[in-house]
């Protein structure tokens, strides 16, 4: 049962990820990203992180990618990119080598660590317990981090306003 879920969700994730990279149309790429996000949300559910699964969908799929699409449409930059043109001939092979190296590094580490990974008592996952645990952790161990995110959000908002606000005279519409 878990395996089936895993396989299906992983297929979604990988297909989506490849889609982001390989689809020439940015809108299609964004939709592929949504597919990946859903796949990961499914994985979260399977791993017992219900709250995160929901937030994943709400924040990522519901807000972030929508914003992407919004910008794409607003600016009309949804033209397909001709992926057959390669500006720097060495770039792609190099990128693939780096990517493969990255994946190889972590996969090798993960495989070698598979027995060494300590296994703790599973988290309670019935009912609201996932959310409760998360909340308690958030407001005790991570309370500073939590409060500090407010500063982060201020930066985001103030910064974006600063960037996109129209200047006094002239400029773009």
């Amino acid at each position, binding site marked *: 049962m878990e395996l089936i879920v895993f396989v299906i969700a992983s297929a979604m994730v990988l297909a989506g990820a490849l889609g982001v990279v390989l689809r020439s149309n940015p809108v299609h790429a964004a939709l592929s990203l949504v597919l990946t996000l859903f796949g990961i949300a499914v994985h979260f559910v399977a791993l017992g992180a219900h709250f995160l699964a929901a937030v994943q969908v709400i924040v990522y799929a519901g807000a972030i990618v929508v914003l992407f699409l919004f910008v794409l449409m607003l600016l009309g930059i949804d033209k397909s990119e001709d992926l057959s043109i390669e500006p720097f001939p060495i770039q792609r092979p190099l990128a693939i080598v780096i990517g493969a190296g990255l994946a190889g590094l972590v996969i090798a580490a993960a495989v070698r660590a598979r027995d060494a990974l300590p296994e703790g008592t599973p988290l309670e996952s019935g009912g609201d317990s996932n959310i409760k645990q998360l909340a308690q952790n958030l407001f005790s161990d991570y*309370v500073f981090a939590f409060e500090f995110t407010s500063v982060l959000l201020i930066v985001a908002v103030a910064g974006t306003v600063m960037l996109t606000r129209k200047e006094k005279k002239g400029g773009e519409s």
Partner: protein
Amino acid sequence: MLAQDTFFTAPEIEWWHISPMLTLVGGALVLLLVGALTPRWPRGLYGLVTALTAMTAGVLAFLQWQEIDDDGPATLIDGALAFDHLTQLLTIAICAAVLLVALVTIDELDIAGKDGPEMYAMFLIAATGAVVMSSANDLIVLFLGLETLSLALYVLAASDRTPRSQESGLKYFILGGFASALFLYGIALVYGTTQSTNISEVAASFTTNVSLEGDPPLILAGLALLIVGLGFKVAAVPFHIWSPDVYQGAPNQVTAFMASVGKAAAFAAMLRVLVIALPFQRDDWRPAIWVLAVLSLVFGSLLAAVQTDVKRMLAYSSVSHAGFILVGVEAAGHDSAGEGMPSVAVYLLLYSILTVGSFAVVAIVAHSNGGDSSIGAFNGLASRRPAVAVALTVFLLAQAGVPFTTGFIAKWGVIQAAIEESSYALGIIAMLSAVIAAFMYLRIMVSAWLTDAEGDVARETVPFASAAAITAAALFTVVVGIFPEWLLHAAESVTQYAR
């Protein structure tokens, strides 16, 4: 609902000890709120408030110094933050840099004709992020600080409405995001080994947990990712590719800010992650840092020497400075608690002030040449503005590491730290690259002192606030360059960090 959770205890919050941070945030909020609600303030007032805020924060950090001497380092808010001399020293460095940058910004914004509170607020918030990074005792907190700083910097880099500025912001953003992702993945894998993101616990897990003996594979992969991520943030070769473009394209004051506060914070993060959190892997990360240091030193200096734009040149020179600091980090990665960390801390403090001064001079020259910061714009500076030329010379000599300037003290410190750990090769490479770099600084000085300007060039206008900042920085550079004893003595104690 809230009272139901009887086993929930809220952590104690040491308000006094986080007051520097709160001051910075408070200043930013005041600027944003009050600034938005009131008509334009008189010229320079926003900047003055910023400078005062930074000064207050710095003084608060300074006042806590003795406390650490008396009671020893500690962790704050349930281990989220470290309260030690490293934190305080870097906080002071950051605040000093912000103060100088704020003064320069007054004039920069005035020239651009867009005085407003936003940029100052961004500076203060970015500085908060930097302070959090330098005091983080939790990898997640560190990451949040990093992001706060980075986001603010992305915005600041793009804040000028010119194509160059926006381009630099975009490039910085994409590559910065990449670096953040790598860094974060590294944190995840460290968590995968130690079951915690808290630096104290991470470090402790290698002493308590028997199964973790003999470097577990996940942490090695995590370490690699962390180093790459940090390498991007400190702009070490080969992860420096963003920095020349960004430095050149960003507004002058922002470039100064990036080179000072940004660099200090990134290295603070590096110390926290590598030296404090993962000391038991030092034999794994030290060689990597060695390689990064050598590459940064050599390529930073070589590429700097062939540039024609001074801002770009200083960008590459900051790469080579990163190489020098990495030499100190490498030294800190040896078994004995040697001079490595103090030398890095001292370097960061001295370099921050130095670089702000340099960019301030570049800004002054560039403005009178219609924004041209190429080396030709400096021709004949000495005959037009001897005082500015002297200040420029002081800064450049200091960057080159000429004696009786802070730059010399800084470089001597890191190389001494390396030599103390018997890293002779590194010391020699560092010094040789300093020679190449010195050649580049001399080129600028030659054009300022010895080359005559072509045609009639207008005399540079030197606005008051910038002049004050430059004077302060130059005096500091020379005076501390001659009498560095107190700073070195103070920095000695950063090896007593909290964990």
